């Protein structure tokens, strides 16, 4: 399998940059390199998502200890069938005194089969290419206050946020112990329903990857909130329309429960379809013909779940919304008549999952558009959702967690990933959503 060919460093970073690894402790990486003059650099790479990351680079020059902040954007691609990931540096800004000289931002290049990345500050000149001395994901035990102080001044917001994230604030540990069960959480269950076409030849691997990411994320969230968790997976040979309908029939959320439904698979629209929401293609074999028995309207799923009366209902469809040359076998009225490491910021989690009520439906593409995935990372929309969710509940973010921000960031993230600058062969996908979420009381 291709994934097994990836080096650990490349795999971890590629997954993190693009697919948002689920463990906050692995949002930080350490990179060491030495330039042609023998100056040694130590970098702390901090990842928010694939479009927002920075590195603090510490080094000694001009008899001074210098720290510079460089912003990064990632580009993931392939050359000769080998994957690469480039982190492109820009906007260098000295945190310490700059001294006489500036700092040319480094571009960091991760290649398949290469344990350590390469660096250059001039992509046009391969003679400037450096091979990193070391690259590793940082774990909780690596993050100490002295370590952070190598890169941050004590009054910086991110320094304080990282201290909170890694429980370095003794005050917060003693005065505000983390509680997994509380008055907010009592009697609440999170129901996660995933329909993922894991068997289909073209996108099956990406669907399986998304399923694994989603289940890990939501299970972790439920654990962190101290609420119940029920998981319903419709995948493999069981990926059928009757299986989804059967699952929906057996789903009985309580009035304070949270229901999350995620579809990952092919999607389409009938050539005479009026509604904006896609048809979910519930076939796991190309030999099965598309028809009434295999197509399921995302809007039907949303209405069905909404009618069950859970407090918060989130329905996501990561699939195409492009027309096929087949007319709808059903009339609209008939159709409508059918009725791990939990190191999250708990306050933000509660704002999203415990102190909100209402309904949210979103899909990855507007009518007429395709949506995109890749086997290494998953669906652009699902990946963007997980990235946005993690960003929304991050210690590094100062404002209140909010579903509208989250879904806006999801749609924009998927749009950015499918734009020409990031994916040269893609067409842009513009996700759409219906939002009706309010504070609980």
């Amino acid at each position: 399998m291709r994934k097994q060919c990836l080096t650990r460093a490349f795999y971890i970073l590629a997954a993190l940059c693009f697919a948002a690894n689920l463990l906050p402790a692995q949002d930080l990486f350490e990179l060491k390199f030495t330039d042609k003059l023998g100056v040694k650099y130590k970098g702390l790479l901090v990842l928010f998502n694939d479009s927002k990351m920075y590195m603090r680079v510490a080094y000694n020059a001009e008899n001074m200890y210098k720290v510079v902040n460089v912003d990064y954007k990632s580009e993931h691609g392939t050359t000769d069938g080998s994957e690469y990931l480039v982190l492109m540096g820009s906007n260098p800004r000295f945190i310490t005194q700059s001294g006489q000289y500036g700092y040319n931002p480094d571009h960091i290049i991760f290649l398949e089969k290469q344990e350590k990345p390469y660096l250059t500050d001039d992509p046009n000149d391969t003679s400037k290419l450096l091979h990193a001395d070391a690259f590793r994901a940082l774990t909780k035990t690596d993050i100490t206050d002295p370590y952070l102080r190598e890169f941050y001044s004590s009054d910086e917001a991110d320094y304080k946020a990282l201290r909170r994230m890694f429980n370095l604030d003794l005050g917060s540990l003693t005065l505000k112990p983390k509680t997994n069960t509380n008055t907010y959480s009592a009697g609440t269950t999170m129901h996660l329903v995933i329909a993922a076409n894991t068997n289909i030849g073209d996108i099956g691997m990406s669907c399986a990857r998304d399923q694994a990411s989603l289940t890990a994320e939501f299970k972790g969230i439920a654990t962190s909130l101290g609420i119940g968790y029920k998981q319903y997976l419709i995948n493999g040979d069981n990926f059928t329309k009757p299986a989804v309908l059967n699952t929906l029939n057996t789903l009985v959320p309580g009035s304070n429960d949270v229901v999350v439904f995620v579809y990952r698979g092919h999607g389409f629209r009938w050539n005479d379809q009026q509604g904006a929401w896609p048809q979910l293609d519930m076939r796991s074999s190309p030999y099965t013909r598309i028809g009434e028995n295999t197509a399921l309207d995302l809007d039907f799923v949303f209405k069905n779940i909404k009618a069950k009366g859970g407090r918060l209902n989130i329905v996501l469809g990561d699939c195409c919304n492009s027309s096929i040359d087949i007319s709808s076998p059903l009339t609209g009225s008939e159709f409508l008549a059918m009725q791990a490491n939990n190191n999250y910021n708990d306050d933000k989690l509660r704002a999203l999952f415990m102190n909100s009520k209402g309904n949210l439906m979103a899909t990855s593409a507007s009518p007429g558009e395709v949506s995109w995935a890749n086997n290494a990372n998953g669906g652009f929309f699902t990946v963007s959702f997980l990235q946005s969710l993690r960003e929304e509940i991050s210690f590094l973010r100062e404002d209140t967690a909010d579903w509208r921000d989250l879904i806006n960031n999801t749609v924009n993230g998927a749009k950015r990933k499918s734009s020409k600058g990031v994916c040269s062969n893609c067409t842009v996908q513009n996700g759409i959503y219906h939002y009706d979420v309010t504070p609980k009381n």
Partner: protein
Amino acid sequence: MVMLKLFMCLLSVVLLGNKSCNSGALGDFVNLLKTSDKVELFVVEAFPTAAQEQTLDATYVADYKVSEFIPTDPAEATALTFAAVDVKNFDLINVKNCPFMAKYALRFSKGKDRVTMVISPASCGKARMIFASGAKEKNLELTPENSLEAAIQKIVSKQAIVK
């Protein structure tokens, strides 16, 4: 972007020891396509038919029922072959989340060996490569403005004018 791609291409040659940029990305199928002595173009149904449901009065290519056979001259066959092996026509990383809806099939033969490339045209541009034995299959994404669909369209539209 272009600069970066050239740089990465150079890196693949310098660092990974590749002989050239983007060689051999289509895998095992390429040799047969390149050396085929016969290329046939068909218009086919959108979905394959399982072997037990196939009828004797119909023709099937890689289980897809043939609606029409489109004759090709040697120059057209060469153009189809070039397009079928041109790696620029395929996205090797990203996939569209749309259902494969077959419309054309290209059958490449060399002696008794056969490989069929079934095409789902835009907007869900995809290709499915199937060995005659059915033992091996490869799914490929067609790039938005690939020369393969263009070559097929050129032949099909000429055929329509002749009719």
